[in-house]
């Protein structure tokens, strides 16, 4: 049981977390933040997130926090 928290205002939409999430739980969103960027969203309906931290380690803007 784990989850991540994305700081949507600092997300730049580079989608590196989307590419590295082993379960595909991070997806490009349809909402825009204040800077006009499609920030990423965390959708985990089946509690599949392991808290492997790959998304947080690769995030260039340090906007992901991981809870486990």
């Amino acid at each position: 049981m784990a989850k991540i928290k994305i700081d949507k205002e600092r997300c730049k939409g580079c989608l590196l977390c989307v590419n590295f999430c082993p379960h595909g739980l991070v997806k490009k969103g349809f909402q825009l933040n204040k800077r006009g960027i499609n920030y990423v969203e965390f959708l985990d309906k089946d509690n599949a997130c392991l808290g492997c931290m790959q998304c947080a380690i690769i995030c260039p803007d340090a906007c992901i926090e991981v809870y486990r």
Partner: protein
Amino acid sequence: MKKIFKHPQSLRKVSTHYCAGCGHGIAHRLIAEVVDELNIREKVIGVAPVGCAVVAYDYWNFDCCEAAHGRALAVATGIKRCRPQNIVFTYQGDGDLAAIGTNETIHAANRGENLTAIFINNAVYGMTGGQMAPTTLIGQKTATTPYGREANYHGWPLKISEILALLKGVVYVERVSLHAPLEVLKAKRAIKQAFFNQIEKRGFSLVEILSPCPTYWQMSPKEALDWIKEVMTKEFPLGRIK
């Protein structure tokens, strides 16, 4: 639930000016994490370069100094000699450390100054518009080499880490990359070792980080990481050099 990955205390929670997918953000965070883990935030002094990372002092939450183009290691030498109790590091790009500042770099390393240099190698001049840097690969297209870099006209990519490894004053040189989460962790370990060498007063340490520049490589952030893995690491092999 416990927070297992948090924003480092030494990194300000502000939005950086870097492009989406830029490796500078990862490198800033790694340095901030290492400073937190070694508990040296009150005595570390960073020297920011000229280049994309020119306002790095706005992002780190510790003391910083700004140097003229290429002169970060000369400024760091002055700070370290006046204040030997502080931990001084420079953060420089390839245009700063390997082009205009080669002289300062080689002499600071040769004097064996007790400093840590973090060298971000992204194979182009990012701040000025993607021109050819000394580290640009053969065949790579940039703003000033629109048909690709040619060895007989532009010369070969400069391998500053291998050059510095020959000098006696240098104790530690490692080349790491940011192309995958595992490599990012290796990069963090190398940065930690470089800071630790300075705390132990061993001499000059340099960590070269291969970093993506998606904007001027004209790729998506993921393609840029793949390009590092498939092309750049062939010219700049990863691992400990000294």
